């Protein structure tokens, strides 16, 4: 309760929450507000926003409704962000927990692999994965998760290193609990809050990665993704720049919302760090 009240006190966190709720509302109402396929032909191409009351945000170069693509795109962005973050956090927790809890050669091996992933530019690795496994929406989401796990793994490892020699862990060992039970039932709940806060950073980066990939036309062309629309608008950038501009604002607002909420959570959960 105190954490919620602490969260609601920060103005930046409140702005973030309102923005995030707006994006979620767009995603949820997409089917109701724009029941037609957002990628189907809706009207004359390249109508400026406001020129035709039927298309609030205008139409793109293929005559598709931009507003509909923005609403349906909110779904794709949030979905990819959530699932990819889930995958990254899951891998990160498992790797970090095993490395931090066991130490020794397990730690050495796992950290070498983590380092290898961190040395490789993650967008390049993403390109390689897409080149090898194709670019439908599931593959892209999994690939983004797979390139994003090293940072959560390091964070989890650091938490486990400081927790593994605490008294409650010793007590669990004395009681004869197995390693797996100690790691996931006893230590993990204590290590979780900073990892959950960090998940917001992973999600913000995941949304940006997907949009960049879609912009380069290496993501799934059959879904209404904001990045796809920006890439399409690039062809008419000199005259009809609004086609690229509008989805960019949507990405900016979503990523901003996710980072503000994460920062607010951080301040609420670690009151000592307030004002940093």
């Amino acid at each position, binding site marked *: 309760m105190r954490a919620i009240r602490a969260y609601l006190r920060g103005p930046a966190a409140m702005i973030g929450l309102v923005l995030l709720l707006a994006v979620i509302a767009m995603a949820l109402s997409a089917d109701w507000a724009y029941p037609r396929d957002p990628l189907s032909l809706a009207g004359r191409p390249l109508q400026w926003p406001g020129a035709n009351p039927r298309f609030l945000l205008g139409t793109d170069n293929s005559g598709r409704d931009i507003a509909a693509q923005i609403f349906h795109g909110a779904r794709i962005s949030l979905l990819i962000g959530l699932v990819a973050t889930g995958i990254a956090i899951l891998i990160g927790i498992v790797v970090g927990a095993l490395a931090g809890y066991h130490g020794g050669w397990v730690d050495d091996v796992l950290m070498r692999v983590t380092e290898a992933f961190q040395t*490789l*530019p*993650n967008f*390049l*690795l993403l390109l390689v994965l897409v080149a*090898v496994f194709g670019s439908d929406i599931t593959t892209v989401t999994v690939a983004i998760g797979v390139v994003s796990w090293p940072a959560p793994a390091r964070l989890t490892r650091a938490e486990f290193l400081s927790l593994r020699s605490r008294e409650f862990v010793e007590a669990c060992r004395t009681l004869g609990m197995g390693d797996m039970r100690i790691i996931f039932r006893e230590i993990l709940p204590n290590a979780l809050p900073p990892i959950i806060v960090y998940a917001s950073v992973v999600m913000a980066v995941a949304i940006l990665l997907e949009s960049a990939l879609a912009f380069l036309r290496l993501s799934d062309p059959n879904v209404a993704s904001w990045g796809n629309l920006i890439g399409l608008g690039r062809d008419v950038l000199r005259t009809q*720049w609004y086609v690229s501009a509008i989805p960019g604002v949507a990405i900016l607002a979503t990523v*901003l919302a996710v980072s503000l909420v994460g920062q607010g959570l951080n301040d609420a959960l670690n009151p000592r760090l307030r*004002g940093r």
Partner: protein
Amino acid sequence: MRVLALAGRRLAASLPTLLIILIGLFLLLQLAPGDTVDALMAQMGGGSAEIAADLRAFYGLDLSVPAQLGNYLWRLVRLDLGFSAIYGKPVATVILERLPATLLLMTASLSFAFFFGLVLGVLAARRVNRWPDTLISTLGLVFYATPSFWFGLMAIVLFAVHLQWLPAGGFEEVEAGLTGFARMLDIASHLVLPTLTLGLIFLAIYLRIMRATMLEVLTLDFVRTARAKGLDETRVITRHVLRNALLPMVTLIGLQAGTMLGGSVVVESVFSLPGLGRLAYEAVVQRDLNTLLGIVFVSAVLVILVNFLVDLAYARLDPRIGAGR
């Protein structure tokens, strides 16, 4: 000397990492549908199965996977990155042609982000929780959330199309046939927008870290001592706080080197710069896996090299590092 040995040890420790990357990627690319020969045949407009088999034998693609991996690693030791069937040149040559543009772009972006991040971070920390701080911190958050390719496109619309101050893309005006200083100016004007675009997100990160470290260092005892001995605030900041606050900033350069290389893929595509990132994108589209693998290798080496330099800079900034061990 001791510092050099220390950094050298770190450099040697990164060799196994490099090996893991290479083996992992090589095995990953085995899963890719189609190989170099398929790409080559497609470009030639098809051909008989015999030609394909001959070509595979020529490129060593008919061997078993472990033998191919062994060949690949042995060639890498001799700095031979293989042959790009698409460009019709050795991969090393293709990469070397593209490397200068990327290095120039990365250096410029890093300097821009580091310098302005430092200045804005110090300004924000000195006026903490007042309006300059709020303004700078908000800008930082917005910059962090801005997709770089979108910022680049909007910059093109504003500065190249409407105001016509700067060129919209490319590395230089080849037709103008400029030389010497004029050519340098021309390249610089082409790099202004890409530098801002690539550097924006790093500017946001640097200013946030700089502000946080400044606030932390300002509460330490030696700052109180410096003030107590009568130094004015500017001297306290420049001589005492800044040097200590720089350490996390320098660490960040090493951590962000890979992210910056990844970001250059997108930025170079937006501004059609002939750099490594754009080459990576073209390699993916054209299924030129040899070139892609070579780029990833060179990028990993670059990241390791940057971290080596960061280690050296770190030891210079913090005398405790060289002296301790």
